[in-house]
């Protein structure tokens, strides 16, 4: 795909994602029923869980691209990993800000050092660490290699985050969708949640393509500047 094609694809997916976000908000405010025990605060769930899913998708994608970069040494794979990490950082920030807003009402505190919250904070630091490691070496290729290793190790955090509520005594609610005996959510809540996951994934891939096009243009500009000098 050409850089212009990526920009077009990115714009199309982002516009679809933004339209989907408006539809998701309409569903959350006017369509989905209110959860009987938690009340209105449970509606944070429809943005918190999709944001968490998208941050997992981002680190998984970055780890895959990083592994292939270490194997093939193709700069396009490194650029893809960087763009996925940036998206992951954005969505992990959303997880870590919307979650405490729910926790203050449900638990009476914004933050507690329980396993899932701590491991999610660790994931956020892995995203930040990737960017810092990539920019911290004088030799850019060395920085890219080190950052690739950070992304691969970071992806190992995902199963721990998912299973932490099962393995440890935890305040955080257990999974209600991704569980062996199937989802336990009522139909309208499950539909809203899955639509939220679709919308956030569209936004991630749209902005990822857009961001990748920027990195590709930067690489082309650097190459032109080097050949001119």
């Amino acid at each position, binding site marked *: 795909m050409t850089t212009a094609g990526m920009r077009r694809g990115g714009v199309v997916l*982002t516009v679809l994602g933004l339209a989907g976000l408006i539809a998701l908000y309409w569903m959350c405010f006017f369509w989905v029923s209110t959860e009987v025990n938690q*009340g*209105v605060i449970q509606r944070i769930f429809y943005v918190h869980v999709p944001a968490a899913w998208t941050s997992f998708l981002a680190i998984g994608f970055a780890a895959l691209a990083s592994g292939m970069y270490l194997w093939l040494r193709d700069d396009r794979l490194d650029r893809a990993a960087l763009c996925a990490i940036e998206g992951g950082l*954005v969505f992990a920030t*959303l997880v870590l800000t919307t979650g405490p807003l729910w926790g203050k009402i449900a638990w009476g505190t914004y933050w507690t050092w329980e396993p899932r919250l701590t491991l999610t904070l660790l994931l956020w630091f892995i995203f930040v660490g990737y960017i810092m490691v990539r920019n911290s070496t004088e030799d850019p290729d060395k920085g890219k290699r080190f950052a690739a290793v950070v992304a691969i190790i970071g992806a190992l955090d995902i199963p721990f985050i998912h299973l932490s509520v099962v393995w440890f005594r935890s305040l955080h609610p257990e999974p209600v969708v991704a569980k062996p005996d199937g989802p336990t959510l009522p139909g309208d809540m499950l539909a809203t949640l899955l639509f939220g996951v679709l919308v956030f994934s569209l936004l991630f891939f749209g*902005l990822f393509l857009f961001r990748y096009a920027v990195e590709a243009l930067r690489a082309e500009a650097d190459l032109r500047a080097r050949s001119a000098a």
Partner: protein
Amino acid sequence: MMMKNIVPRSLMLSLAGLAVTAAVTLAQEAAGVPPQASRLAEQNLRPYWHVFAAYALVIVVIGGWVISIARRLRAIEDRSVE
């Protein structure tokens, strides 16, 4: 005679009323049902504010990323033109 009896009877009736109210309140507290005033006091708008803050954060953070990408794109395009 009638007027003489009204005052003590009213007092007795008021005390009986208070006793019934106190007994009902104590029974409610023993059963774990909060009195109406407490129940109303528990209802506030705080959860709504938290929901609106979370939904607004999504727009602000994703919008911030879009603006950041667009600004970097413009900077590179300007550099290419130079």
